[in-house]
């Protein structure tokens, strides 16, 4: 039933059981997926707030654009591969196959770790060249946004490590299917967030 129709229902008129076992208006999804949907919305709000702050702060006169290191392109590639591997794992699990599932799922996490290592390498290089966090607001935002994105990835990797352990200890694809699906969704989300961050960091 559409949301509008639900909200215009006159509850004092209708008596008796409405709907089947599922309550009317509930999503046809496991609660975990619904909760993840809400979480992704919250994370989007957080990143949007930083985005708005970035644009406002950029317009002030002391802003000195930071030349984005070329390695960011390489790191972006690593994260994209990570996302592709997760999608592969998801498709495999959905098909109920065991073959390649472990390689794809664990490989996805490993590439995310490589991405984080790559980002930290950039931080190190920037520090070595004298671009410290407090030297200019452009630098501050660079460290802040990349750091926040890494923090979100680390949260995902925690769930990934738990699911990986379950896979390694012999869980069947159908037992870990939901975890894999949610990880994949989260990884795609973080890839999109990263692409947006990359775009606004480059747009100085």
């Amino acid at each position, binding site marked *: 039933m559409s949301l509008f129709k*639900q909200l215009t229902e006159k*509850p004092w008129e209708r008596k008796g059981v409405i709907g089947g076992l599922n309550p009317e208006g509930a999503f046809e999804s496991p609660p975990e997926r*619904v909760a993840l949907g809400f979480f992704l919305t919250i994370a989007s709000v957080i990143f949007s707030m930083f985005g708005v702050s970035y644009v406002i702060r950029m317009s002030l006169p002391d802003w000195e654009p930071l030349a984005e290191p070329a390695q960011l392109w390489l790191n972006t590639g690593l994260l994209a591969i990570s996302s592709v591997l997760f999608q592969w794992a998801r498709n495999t699990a959905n098909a109920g196959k065991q073959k390649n599932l472990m390689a794809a799922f664990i490989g996805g996490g490993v590439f995310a770790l490589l991405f984080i290592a790559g980002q930290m390498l950039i931080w190190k290089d920037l520090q070595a060249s004298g671009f410290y966090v407090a030297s200019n*607001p452009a630098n*501050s935002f660079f460290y802040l946004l990349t750091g926040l994105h890494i923090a979100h990835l680390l949260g995902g990797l925690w769930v990934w490590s738990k699911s990986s352990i379950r896979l390694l200890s012999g869980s069947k694809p159908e037992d870990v299917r939901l975890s894999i699906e949610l990880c994949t969704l989260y990884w795609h989300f973080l890839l999109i967030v990263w692409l947006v961050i990359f775009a606004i960091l480059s747009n100085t």
Partner: protein
Amino acid sequence: MAYVPLADQDSEMEMHHPHSWVTKYVWSQDHKVIAIQYGGLAIAVGVVALVLSLLMRMQLGFPETFDLIDPSSYYQSVTMHGMIMVVYMLTALLLGGFGNYLIPLMCGARDMVFPFLNMLSVWVYALSVIILMSSFFVSGGPTGAGWTLYPPQTSMAGTPGHDMGIVLMLLSLAVFIVAFTMGGLNYVTTILQYRCRGLTMMRLPLTVWGIFIATILGLFAFPALLVSAIMMLFDILLGTSFFMPAVIESGTPLDHNGGSPILFQHLFWFFGHPEVYIVALPAFGLVSDVLSTHARKNIFGYRMMVWAIIAIGGLSFVVWAHHMYVSGMHPYFGFFFATTTLIIAVPTALKVYNWVLTLWEGDIRLNAPMYFAIGFIFTFIHGGLTGLFLGNVVIDLPLSDTYFVVAHFHMVMGVSPVLVIFAALYHWYPKVTGRMFHEGMAKAHFWITFLGTYAIYLPMHYLGFLGVPRRYYAMGSTDFIPESAQDLNAAITIAALIVGAAQILFFINIFWSLRNGKKAGPNPWGSASLEWQTPDTPPKHGNWGDELPTVYRWAYDYSVPGAHEDFIPQNVPESVEPTADEQHFDPDHDASKADT
């Protein structure tokens, strides 16, 4: 499959069924125990904040007599009182306390969707309280920057707690937001997915609607506070200049340059204004249910009440800059925010009319919860009307820094939600404990609190008109404030001390009644909503015994013409409902009462 009754799956139930004292009362995953932990801790910090306010009042009322606090600790008290009351008391008590207790019961569920996350939520909240309270014991004490924490003064040497105090405050807020998010995800998912059979969204009691929309507001608004807290921590700890402008402190230029304090204000109030409704909406919901039950009448205009909650929730995101008129803005912005502020008064006023119309021709039972609920209507109208004044730029500018604003926000979001909290605590106390409270003591508590708050805040409006500035440790002598203003100040302080002391009655009552109260029975108020229909009182772990309830009607079937009793519980099927032919028809209970 969307509907998976948690405890109906044996293994799931086994997983979080308590086995020891520790898992039952400390690391409990039962939503009812978590609710009491949340509520108890929130009330405890609320008492700390109350004591701080009394210290301030003693200083303001009798500046020469008491020497309890100096100017620095006055500012620290203002700051901690405000922040604790708004975030750590009201938000935590209304959502963490009432939300946790009532959502699964009113939805006919066995527990929250994610009980472990729920347990984490309350303990992370406890951690945030510990961090906040620890700032009383660090060098320099807690921050005295005002609850709005505006930079640059938050971290400048003249502000008390500018080193450790502010860091601990920001850290504590960040931890609180993590706790709130864990709880909030649980509340919204439970309401959407774990309603029992037959319970459509429009059959939910307004309490659940209020908590649902308030939680969504919180999930969208708290990120703004988190973002500003992170950036301010960077400014303070790492020397960045997100918010800090070029500034000279005691003749020495600081290492900051070019930051925007106004940006912080926008972020803060983008959180801060919805926060008002994060507190208000659950209170609106709770009071609707208390009024309806004790008036023995369905809530007037249920659908409009739901729509108003949603409309207020949406509009609350486009009014934030009315807190910033004095910071200066383009006149068109001021016009925009003044207009949206006045528009939000429309659904809010609609709710007030509906509460009053619920009372109209009701079979009103003047029980203690009803006293508090009706008291709320008074204080809320009062605080709401002064809000209409302050929403206008030209009126706000001269009044903004005076006691008029103190009176306004205390009436509308201090006293009003607190009266609802008392109404709700007394109303649901029999379900939580299985005992009745002492009615006389509760009514005495009401009269002292209700009349006392008027004695405190009504005169403050006049002080505001006189131009008495807020945030001042001592007034000194001025040309424009008459000496009699000080008499009023002293009277306010006496009233505040009496109201503060009267709260002891509440604590005596709830603890005394635990053992000595009359047995309440399952449904002492004759309430139709689901939480009163549990097989055990207080409800046991899992809430519903062997079988989950099925819902056949909305939560407000009171005084239905021809019905056997003056309420029909939500889980009573039509076939069991006695018809008019079988019952004597009472002409006083005409059909218009049951129809909206």
